[in-house]
């Protein structure tokens, strides 16, 4: 039998990168935060995560089936959306909030724009904003870890009375012994996952560094002006959804810029915006809103591209 050879354009080799690998890396990077949520808030957190992930996958598959598109559940992106959304919810939410949220994330956040690669806003954040605006009191009800007693998150306490933040130990913030959304309370777990995804190369250092840098700079200036009412840099970096936002939400590939300058500016401005909302806005934590607003500006940052090699100046 005659052998047939494949003919195609160069290059004939390809690297190990794939969408599946990228999404799986993000999922693995979020596992430490999920394990800490399970430890701190008990079985409720597991139910929330499973509901959100299952809903996301089912809704996506149904939509793709109805619109006769190829099924994409294998690329793990729907699971990732559900997982991220669950980590942004408080442990007190009723079972239907993750379900509605995941549905909104897939339908309004992803599929109406044409699926992976086309949406302008981070889908879990879109869903988070929808449920937050629809059921504000249910979304602001946080439990003390290991108990079912209602408590304020550090940033909510700060909004109530600026002097309250002195009652928080930095060690508790770092290890996660404070009330808050499931995945954001333990800074250590988020950082472990962040190191993993940085090592695997699915995100680059520019956005997280610039984001934290923007927040730190702003906080340092305020703290320098009046340390009595403005908390320290460490408090700002460790509280709220900042680290999760800086490492997992802001560098999300589809909705973040691609050029080095663009990424640095994107992160820095998101950090500044976070601090403005935290200090003078209506909401205790501005991280997620800041990322959403900066997502809208992402196409503009892509204009900040490096000079093409060998571009000749025209006289």
């Amino acid at each position, binding site marked *: 039998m005659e*052998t*047939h*050879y*494949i*003919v*195609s*354009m*160069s*290059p*004939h*080799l*390809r*690297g190990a*990168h*794939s*969408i599946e*690998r*990228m999404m799986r890396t993000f999922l693995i990077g979020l596992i430490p935060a999920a394990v800490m949520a399970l430890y701190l808030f008990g079985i409720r957190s597991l139910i929330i995560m499973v509901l959100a992930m299952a809903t996301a996958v089912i809704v996506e598959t149904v939509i793709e089936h109805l619109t006769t598109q*190829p099924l994409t559940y294998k690329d793990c992106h729907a699971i990732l959306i559900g997982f991220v959304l669950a980590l942004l919810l408080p442990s007190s939410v009723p079972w239907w909030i993750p379900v509605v949220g995941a549905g909104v994330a897939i339908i309004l956040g992803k599929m109406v724009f*044409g*699926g*992976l*690669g*086309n949406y302008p806003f981070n889908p879990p954040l879109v869903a988070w904003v929808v449920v937050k605006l629809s059921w504000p009191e249910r979304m602001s009800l946080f439990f003390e870890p290991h108990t079912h007693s209602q408590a304020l998150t550090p940033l909510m306490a700060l909004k109530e009375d600026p002097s309250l933040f002195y009652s928080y130990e930095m060690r508790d913030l770092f290890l996660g012994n404070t009330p808050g959304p499931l995945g954001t309370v333990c800074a250590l777990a988020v950082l472990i996952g962040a190191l993993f995804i940085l090592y695997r*190369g*699915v995100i*680059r250092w520019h956005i997280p560094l610039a984001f934290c840098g923007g927040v730190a700079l702003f906080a340092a200036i305020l703290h320098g002006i009046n340390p009595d009412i403005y908390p320290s840099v460490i408090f700002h970096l460790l509280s709220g959804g900042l680290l999760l936002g800086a490492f997992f939400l802001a560098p999300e*590939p*589809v*909705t*973040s*810029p*691609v*050029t080095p300058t663009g*990424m640095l500016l994107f992160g820095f401005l998101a950090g500044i915006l976070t601090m403005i909302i935290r200090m003078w806005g209506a909401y205790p934590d501005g991280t997620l809103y800041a990322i959403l607003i900066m997502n809208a500006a992402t196409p503009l940052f*892509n204009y900040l*591209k*490096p*000079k*093409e*090699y*060998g*571009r*000749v*100046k*025209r*006289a």
Partner: protein
Amino acid sequence: MKGQIFLHPIWYTLLTEEHTTMALFAKGITFSKKVTTLTFHRIDTPLPKRVILPLKQYIGEASQPVVTKGDKVTTGQLIAAAPTETSLPLHATIAGTVKDITEQPDYKGTPTLSIIIEGDGTDTWIEAPKEEKEQKEISSLAPSEILKRIHAAGLITTQLVPVPLTTDLVPIDQPKTHLIDGQRITKKIDTLIITALDREPFLGVNRYLAGKDNKELADGIAALKIITGAHSVRFVVDTHYPPATQLQELVAADEEETTTLISLNGRRFPIGLAIPLIKAALGREVPLPYGHPRDVGVALYDMNTAIAVGKAVSTQLPQVDSLITVGGGAMPKQGIVTVRIGTSIGDVIASLGGLSKDPAKIIIGGPMTGMAHYDLTTPITKETDGLFALTHDEIQLSGDYRQCINCGLCVKVCPVNLLPGVLSLYCAKDKFDMAEAEGLFHCIECGCCDYVCPSRRPMVHLFRHAKHQLMEP
């Protein structure tokens, strides 16, 4: 160490060699040691029974056959003359009979008039030219005489595109034009770069030659220096493969320190391609598009060409064989193979022992920039530098590629600072003019963006399609 890379002293103290390369040229991909370790077994193949010699193996005009069907020819005999400057003479590479002069698909698949020679099994050479007996020193030869000998030997260079070496070299006594700031002005060539890096980390001919002592190398460099008028010579070698003592002696023997040795990390790709190489070795940027190394005062040739020039000038014999790298999972042997020009790739593979595993792709050139072939009668031409047979496990096809997810990995690796993802979107949607405005013609088609793309988008394919559409109105 004398003759190392020249930079500001502060770089020298702060950074190792590897880092200096990175600082000057941080883009591209670094391949792992495992896949880029080269085997330098020199394999000699038997004389082919039949060769196919296309009359045009370069970009330029085809040469005119001077033999007819049925003529007896000997090795090295002129079989096609070069009437114009942009054509090259063609020589028989085996002794035998001209079987036919007919159209054959060349390595690009274009039907090209080719001379087919049926060998008689012997390797009878033509008489060496008479002038050879009164051997003259290279330095005493006039530039026009050297150029004439290079042209007569039929040499080509493949640094940017395959062109006759004589059209790429501009003689010292002729006015040179260069593209600077959008207009052509005269600029003197000051540096001759002789590179031992191959176009890809997988190809090894130049690295192999750099590790061997060649008596023709010094002649070739002297000849190239005379023609181009360059006063300094830079050897670019691979950090991972030590250069031969001959190269180090050439560097050490130079009192005025105009000859230097630059070590670059050869596992990086596309550092071996001409345009990134000049950036990495000298820090100069060739103007793009349509720029040439001479626009920044550089003449860039590889080891193989320099040695061929030395041979052509000193012996005045034509080039009949070429060195190619063979490799890939389905290839029975890995190494450097000497083949006669015109041997079909099927014959080369058969003489190595036939394809071992289930082959998926046969590639002329390297796996990153080479061309896949389906026809095993395609001949090896003067520009061929590699022959690879890849298995199904080694290749990955684009297949149903996905939407660009804007991850920016291609931006990270692109050696000419483009946004390949954005360009590929324009090209896929037939917005060719917008792609051109975004710098499509700066693309050197290295394939790094394809290699890293998680959506497996066939970037180079889309870019070539767009360029083709734009160039053919």
